[in-house]
């Protein structure tokens, strides 16, 4: 799919902005703080219902306004879909698909994006929570139904942790915690489903990841990707559920003491291997970059191979400035066959020339299209 028009009202620093990008690479150039990233953030918001920069929706609404509007025309295979989202400072957000009222949470069925950003380095170097989010975002993109499973799991976890905390405060002995069993049952059922999907994702990602790493780093470094589950159980869902249930039972006293759930998918991690060593702690800065980019590239290729809507829209947010010229070239080559790629850069020279086909200049919240020079 690709964005054939994008229109913003009172979004971030834009009072109004309208662009009509074409296929291929779309470059947004401008100094820092002018609003390049805000454009791609708006597109990404529709696909992920969140921002890669903030967790507060109201930060997306222009200061002094009550509502922001993002309107995107998507085209795929000769069909177009119009998605409109109105983010309200007070009250619920509104959404329309082809002018008919819809739910914002249904948008990810129509649009999918893969965003590459400097923060991706933290996927490799940072805390496990970032890697869990990477997995969960992808399993939801593959199977939208799982959004409900993931959010239900989080809610059960909260309910259960609150119960464990009150049990500690009120000093109830563990045999009396009648309702804990019920939350355990839900936690195990939902957790087992999440773990199965994560395993399936990592298995399907491992081939494309190896290819992507080779494409970006220019050589094969034996990359591997393994789930480090907090519950060590055989692959089968039934065996996992059984082990999960047992661990909750045997760990109950300790869980009450700590007032939290100590096992489950919320404590999983992923180990990224490079030359048979964990990338975290062993990879150089350049290798970490290659790894982070390959993770996103392989995710994009996996989504492409499964989607009925065509390619996900790629977003390369301030990425080229961080890369050496060899990696820039190879990344440019790797994204060249995607339907549409948005690129933001402070300096046009950072972007490989073959990607400079459509250039928009962004300055203080206004966007101007650079007429391509013909030679």
């Amino acid at each position, binding site marked *: 799919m690709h964005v054939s028009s994008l229109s913003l009202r009172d979004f971030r620093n834009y009072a109004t902005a309208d662009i009509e990008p074409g296929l291929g690479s779309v470059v947004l150039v401008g100094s820092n703080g002018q609003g390049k990233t805000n454009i791609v953030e708006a597109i990404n918001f529709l696909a992920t219902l969140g921002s890669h920069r903030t967790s507060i929706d109201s930060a997306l609404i222009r200061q002094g306004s009550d509502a922001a509007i993002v309107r995107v025309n998507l085209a795929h295979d000769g069909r177009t879909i119009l998605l409109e989202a109105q983010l309200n400072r*007070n*009250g619920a957000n509104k959404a329309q698909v082809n002018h008919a009222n819809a739910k914002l949470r249904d948008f990810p069925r129509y649009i999918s994006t893969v965003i590459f950003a400097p923060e991706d380095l933290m996927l490799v170097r940072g805390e496990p929570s970032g890697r869990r989010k990477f997995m969960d975002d992808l399993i939801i993109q593959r199977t*939208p*139904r799982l959004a*409900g499973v993931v959010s*239900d799991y989080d*809610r*059960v976890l*909260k*309910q*259960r942790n*609150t*119960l464990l905390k*009150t049990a500690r405060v009120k000093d109830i002995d563990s045999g009396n915690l*009648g*309702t804990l*069993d*019920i*939350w355990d*049952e*839900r936690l195990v059922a939902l957790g087992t489903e999440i773990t199965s999907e994560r395993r399936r994702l990592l298995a399907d990602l491992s081939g494309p990841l190896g290819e992507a790493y080779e494409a970006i780093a220019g050589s094969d470094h034996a990359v591997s990707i393994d789930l480090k589950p907090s519950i060590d159980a055989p692959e089968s869902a039934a065996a996992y559920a059984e082990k999960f249930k047992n661990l909750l039972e045997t760990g109950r006293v300790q869980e009450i003491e700590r007032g939290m759930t100590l096992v489950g998918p919320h404590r999983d991690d992923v180990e990224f291997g490079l030359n048979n060593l964990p990338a975290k702690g062993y990879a150089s800065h350049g290798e970490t970059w290659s790894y982070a980019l390959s993770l996103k590239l392989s995710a994009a290729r996996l989504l492409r191979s499964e989607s009925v809507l065509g390619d996900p829209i790629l977003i390369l947010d301030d990425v080229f400035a961080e890369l050496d010229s060899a990696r820039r070239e190879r990344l440019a080559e790797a994204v060249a066959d995607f339907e549409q790629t948005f690129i933001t850069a402070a300096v046009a020279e950072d972007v490989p020339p073959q990607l400079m086909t459509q250039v928009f200049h962004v300055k203080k919240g206004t966007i101007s299209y650079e007429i391509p020079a013909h030679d």
Partner: protein
Amino acid sequence: MYDGIVQELIDELGRLPGIGPKSAQRIAFHILQTESFDVSRLSSVLVEVREKVKFCEICGNVSEEVTCGICRDPRRDPTFICVVEEAKDVVAIERTREFRGLYHVLGGAISPIDGIGPDDLRIRQLMTRLADGTVMEVIIATDPNLEGEATATYLSRLLKTLEIKVSRLASGLPVGGDLEYADEVTLGRAFEGRRTVS
């Protein structure tokens, strides 16, 4: 901000569920400016409702007397009890005119986050009602969300020890709707709960 009492009115209205600051302001000005609006009637109803309406001693439904109209009605079948979270749910089920048994209002669902455990719900009263053996079937009609399901599971385990049939309302496709517009979770549930027709 408005002066004194006007702002106070807006604030009070804004505390009601489902009323945001803008609606509160609109209602406040309606009360202030509309001549035909009978304030004394509204205020007396508000006072009266708090004085008169109690909760039925048997089922927990709202009632102007010690027991509610449904519990007093001799035509209702006392062998069925439908367990719901709120009195609102009784009204919803009554609208169907399908159910002729009695109700039991729990007063919420199990939710540790909101500080609600089994002891905060009218579960003990339910067990007392079931003790004399009149009831043949308990229909659990809590909401089909996490907390409602947790409450249903808790109740069904508790009732397993008694010789009473326990059932749960089915989840599935909305009648008169289109299959293609059903969300995956609902459709999935409908598959799980499918029935043999021949």
